[in-house]
């Protein structure tokens, strides 16, 4: 079964051995597998083998109705399900030629930014854990629990939200929720300082990540990296600011870009630190959104029970926690089911960059590289 991978590795010299890393390995972030050809600790090449979590979500999209597919999008990226919801909702809304009401758009932005913080917390925490610092991970999870509580109060679920619907959002913001969220944000900003003191500027941590896995800007674009991975390479691009969707043009926020804080631009540390800074920006966005939250409906009044968009195809993309998430949805105008649903995810293409970068790394570096790319197995395989 593995003949093709082994063939791809090429012949082994006397010193080299093949190391099978995953799919059951503590730090491959889900069921991802790497076939590593190495000389002792030094990797000659690491080939990613994915597909262990392939659930054919795109095929399911052709079998279920348009609204019926929404819960499945949660499973495409379970750490940042809000974005998966929103991307699909935007694509179908584009097909139908309507837009969610303003209050719904603000609810979307708030929930997405909270979800972005939760997702980045996991990313930052596992980064520390993969480098060997076990404490920051639990601290990150602690804050994520509070966030999960908030999101649960908003939409009733803690992981697979199914909150965004075609034409709006499922529930309005509950009473007293905004105050709770603001209280959390006040606390969270101080906690972010704590992470900086505990982990970010730790000498060992910096030494481990500086100048490791450097992705120059051209390479990042060429390989189709998106989101924080792209920005860490110095490309100043954020869909929320540059091609705003929803209500994002109402907010003031910075887009953190990798500056080579401890080494070259686009190394693993930059990818890590861009995420820390993005969490601060998300806090800002949520504050502004809660302040400006307009009154009105949370659901478009003209959404029929049976969603049957006119024939056509739509490409919608959102700035997910793992970068640009694109939905390509086609409808034939007759059926209640999509003809084709395509989910373009950031993690999938981020995996493509592992093979060229892995040459000459050490095994411990490969773990750090995967963590810094923040790949999530279900998003790779869908």
């Amino acid at each position, binding site marked *: 079964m*593995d003949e*093709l991978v082994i063939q*791809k590795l090429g012949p082994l010299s006397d010193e080299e051995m093949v190391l099978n890393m995953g799919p059951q390995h503590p730090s491959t972030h889900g069921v991802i597998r790497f076939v590593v050809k190495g000389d002792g600790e030094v990797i000659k090449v690491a080939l990613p083998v*994915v*597909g262990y979590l392939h659930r054919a979500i*795109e095929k399911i999209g052709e079998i279920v109705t348009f609204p019926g597919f929404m819960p499945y999008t949660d499973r495409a990226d379970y750490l940042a399900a809000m974005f998966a919801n929103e991307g699909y909702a935007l694509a179908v809304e584009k097909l139908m030629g309507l837009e969610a009401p303003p209050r719904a758009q603000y609810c979307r932005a708030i929930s997405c930014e909270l979800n972005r913080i939760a997702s980045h917390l996991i990313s930052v925490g596992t980064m520390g854990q993969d480098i060997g610092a076990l404490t920051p991970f639990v601290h990150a999870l602690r804050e994520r629990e509070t966030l999960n509580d908030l999101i649960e109060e908003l939409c009733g679920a803690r992981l697979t939200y199914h909150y965004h619907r075609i034409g709006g959002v499922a529930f309005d913001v509950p009473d007293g929720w905004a105050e709770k969220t603001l209280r959390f944000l006040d606390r969270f900003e101080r906690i972010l300082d704590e992470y900086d003191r505990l982990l970010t500027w730790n000498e060992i941590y910096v030494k481990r990540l500086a100048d490791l896995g450097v992705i120059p800007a051209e390479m990042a674009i060429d390989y189709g990296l998106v989101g924080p991975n792209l920005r860490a390479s110095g490309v100043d691009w954020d869909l929320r600011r540059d091609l705003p969707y929803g209500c994002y043009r109402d907010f003031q926020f910075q887009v953190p870009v990798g500056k080579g804080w401890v080494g070259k631009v686009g190394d693993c540390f930059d990818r890590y630190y861009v995420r820390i800074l993005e969490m601060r920006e998300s806090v800002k966005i949520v504050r502004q959104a809660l302040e400006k939250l307009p009154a009105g409906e949370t659901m478009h009044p003209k959404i029929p029970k049976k969603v049957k968009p006119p024939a056509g195809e739509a*490409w919608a993309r959102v700035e997910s926690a793992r970068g640009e998430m694109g939905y*390509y949805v086609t409808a034939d105008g007759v059926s209640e089911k999509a003809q084709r649903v395509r989910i*373009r995810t950031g993690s999938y293409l981020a*995996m493509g960059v592992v093979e060229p970068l892995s040459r000459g790394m050490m095994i411990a570096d490969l773990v750090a590289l995967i963590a810094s790319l923040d790949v999530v197995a279900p998003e790779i395989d869908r």
Partner: protein
Amino acid sequence: MTLSPEEIHAKAKAAFGEAVGELQPPAKDAFFTVTPAKIREVCAFLKEDPSLAFDFLEDVTATDHHPKEPLIRLVYHLFSYRHRHGIVVKAELPRDGASLPSLDPVWKAANWLEREVYDLFGVAFEGHPDLRRIMMPDDWVGHPLRKDYQEAGGYFDITNVRDSALVEFRRMDEAVRAAAEKSAATNATPATPATAPAAPAPAGGAQVH
């Protein structure tokens, strides 16, 4: 400078003539079709031309039009970070023996995206450096995202077919009911009148399994 789809299409048409089809009326996302054999040249032009500069290959996917037309359409979503404009390029292929040049020499991102299309749609990419299945195992039969794909019923000893859960529940219910009737029938003719009334059958499928 951001160009509209019409301008982008005009430039491509001027450079390649017949190989570039008409711009479809931009209902949602404007696209034009390219002769499959020419796809690499057209895309290289779209990337290299300084006024177009499509440096970002957003997505490569395909749509299968099985019952209506014997076609697979490759869909390329291109975007330019420099000019902030995007375009959709399509290529029409026959369903049997679908094959066209790979875009890997133009954008490295095409490597993995095309592998996925190869795996799930069975489109061969000429000149692809690493054309292996990616989602499915190497020895999988068929291409799942084709409309006429039939599941083989299993993979080695692993079955992917099972009875509907409803059928199983109904079977369990009937077993429970049968057991209850049986105990009621035995209790209906008691030896002594003092016997307790028929006990209700245990809930759930505990008896069955």
